[in-house]
C-alpha cells in the first residue's frame, strides 16, 4: 500500500480561527512533508519531519506548527488563520535513505473566509 491519506479533504475556516490538518501513511517512511500549493505557484515546502526531528522553512517558521506523535501520522496546525492561508496543503512522505521519491496525498483544500 503506497497511500498517503489526508483529512479533511476540504476545510472552511474563519479568519482568526485555528486549523488542524492531518496526514497519515502506512509505508513506514521516516520523512513526512507539508507543502502549500496556491494556483499558478509552485508547491512551497513548509516543513518536514525526519523521524522525530522537525525542520521548518525560515520564511514560514512562525506561521505553521506541526506534530508527529508516531511514525505514521503528521499534523499541520495554523493557530490563527488569515486569508493568505487559503491554499491546497499537500502532505508527502519518503524514505530519506532512498533519496527517494515523494508519495503524495490528494491534498487538503483550505478556504479561509
Amino acid at each position: 500500500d503506497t497511500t498517503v491519506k489526508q483529512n479533511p479533504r476540504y476545510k472552511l475556516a474563519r479568519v482568526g480561527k485555528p486549523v488542524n490538518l492531518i496526514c497519515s501513511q502506512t509505508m513506514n517512511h521516516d520523512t513526512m512533508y507539508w507543502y502549500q500549493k496556491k494556483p499558478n505557484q509552485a508547491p512551497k515546502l513548509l516543513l518536514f519531519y525526519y523521524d522525530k526531528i522537525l525542520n521548518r522553512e525560515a520564511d514560514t517558521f512562525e506561521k505553521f506548527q506541526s506534530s508527529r506523535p508516531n511514525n505514521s501520522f503528521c499534523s499541520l496546525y495554523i493557530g490563527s488563520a488569515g486569508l493568505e492561508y487559503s491554499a491546497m496543503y499537500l502532505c508527502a512522505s519518503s524514505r530519506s535513505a532512498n533519496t527517494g521519491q515523494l508519495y503524495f496525498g490528494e491534498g487538503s483544500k483550505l478556504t479561509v473566509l
Partner: protein
Amino acid sequence: AQSVTQPDARVTVSEGASLQLRCKYSYSGTPYLFWYVQYPRQGLQLLLKYYSGDPVVQGVNGFEAEFIKSNSSFHLRKASVHWSDSAVYFCAVTGYQNFYFGKGTSLTVIP
C-alpha cells in the same frame, strides 16, 4: 538558491503529436531530478526520476526525460501523446531531503 523553472504554464497539443515540456533547475550540489504528474482530483504521482548514469531516463506511459548537465535542464518528452495525458506536470529537484518544485505545466491534449 535552489530553484526550478518551468517556462511554459500551459501547453496544448493534438493527440498523436510529440511533446516536450521544459524544465531548468538551479541546484548547488548533485541534483536528483524528478517529474511528477497530477491528474484532476488526484495527488501528485511520480512519472520518472534521474539519480545518475544514463542521462535519458524512461518513465511510465511512454514518457522520458533527458538530463543535460551543461544546460541545467531536465526536459520531459513523449513521442505520441494521448488525450489521457492531459494533466499538470511538475519538475522537481532535490539533493537529500528538501524537494523544490516548479510551478507546473498544464498540458491539454486535443482529441
